[in-house]
């Protein structure tokens, strides 16, 4: 067994151990910390599988943004947690719950073990057609060209998630801004970081979006870094979330899916069909779509974290 194989085995064992620890953690907050560590370890696993794009997304979205969302949820549930812990389910309830869980696990294990080997793949075909897109990164080609409709719908799901969060607003706050009113004294250390980091973060975010055409990166990863910069300035209370009635905010939220869909519909007239791109402009069109997607992702994720409106709208 070579050194790398031993390291891989150790990594796999570590991921499983952190996953088990996360499930058995008693407090919600501890479980969230375990989940974030699990996501970061998983992104190292993906690097070892040479899936750099997925690793970047896992680190940025799966571990980073989801972690922030879950920490917020855990903080809000802290008061309810004790009451929930006191409500012990009865013995038969627990027994049947564990039986169901074991059955689900067995079914999943059976499905995974009965997968055909070698797995059915479209990879050779995708690699063959890559030249037609003018892109160097096959992941971006698959996401924006080969299965563009799916990617567009994924962004629609994100917008729907924001609508879902906003719909939790009490009637009197509708149209107001999310987030509690500004604290009197900002946390100085965080404010320092929030002032120092964004210039670099914005540069890195745009860089990762731009190199996504030819190297690992792309709209999702770049947008997530831009989103993180906005989130950190909001957390440090240097900026405030805009009111949900703001027309600019709403336009930025839907810009990505809207431009994507409009380009797809234009394909009916300009090229061979729905979501077909004219052969000469494939790469510029893909970068054009990705630019708006980056904007939408950079706005959507902070609005998810900011939560429902909690302030009276300005009249």
């Amino acid at each position, binding site marked *: 067994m070579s050194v790398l194989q031993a390291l891989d085995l150790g990594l796999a064992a570590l991921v499983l151990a952190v996953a088990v620890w996360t499930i058995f953690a008693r407090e919600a907050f501890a479980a969230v910390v375990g989940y974030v560590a699990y996501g970061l370890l998983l992104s190292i696993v993906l690097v070892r599988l040479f899936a750099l794009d997925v690793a970047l997304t896992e680190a940025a979205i799966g571990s980073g943004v989801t972690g922030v969302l879950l920490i917020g949820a855990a903080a809000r549930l802290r008061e309810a947690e004790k009451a929930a812990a006191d409500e012990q389910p009865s013995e038969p309830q627990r027994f049947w719950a564990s039986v169901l869980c074991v059955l689900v696990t067995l079914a999943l294990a059976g499905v995974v073990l009965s997968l055909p080997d070698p797995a059915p793949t479209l990879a050779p075909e995708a690699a063959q057609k890559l030249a037609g897109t003018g892109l160097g990164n096959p992941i971006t080609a698959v996401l924006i060209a080969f299965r563009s409709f799916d990617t567009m719908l994924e962004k629609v799901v994100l917008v729907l998630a924001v609508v879902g969060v906003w719909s939790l607003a009490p009637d009197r706050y509708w149209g107001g801004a999310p987030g509690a009113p500004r604290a009197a004294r900002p*946390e100085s250390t*965080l404010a320092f970081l929030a002032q120092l980091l964004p210039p670099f973060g914005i540069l890195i975010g745009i860089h990762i979006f731009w190199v996504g055409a030819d190297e690992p990166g792309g709209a999702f990863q770049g947008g997530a870094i831009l989103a993180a910069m906005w989130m950190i300035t909001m957390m440090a209370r240097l900026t405030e979330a805009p009111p949900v009635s703001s027309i600019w905010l709403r336009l930025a939220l839907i810009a990505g899916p809207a431009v994507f869909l409009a380009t797809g519909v234009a394909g009916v007239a300009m090229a061979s069909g729905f979501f077909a791109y004219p052969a000469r402009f494939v790469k510029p069109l893909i970068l054009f779509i990705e630019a708006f997607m980056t904007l939408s992702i950079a706005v959507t994720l902070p609005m998810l974290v900011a939560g429902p409106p909690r302030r009276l709208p300005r009249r």
Partner: protein
Amino acid sequence: MSLVLDILSIMAICAGAFFFFAGTVGLLRFPDALCRLHALTKADNLGLGLVVLGLLPRTGGLLASLKLLAIWALIQLAGATAAQLIARAARRKGPAP
């Protein structure tokens, strides 16, 4: 020349690994939250710095070397800030954590 660089790389990375090891031991063995943070930030700053130093001759390009240095600087910044925030939260929670 390349042999000298290789030896330098190995020494720097081993020293970096030692600081990570020492930081981990400190994290596990030190008695309270502030001491544990102290041990951890040394691993981040010095350990990672030495690993980056060891990797610099192996990048094969100025741009890649600058990216490595930027990663080190950003992690230092993030690590120092996170340590400050955790320490403040730990102090707020109890007088002697």
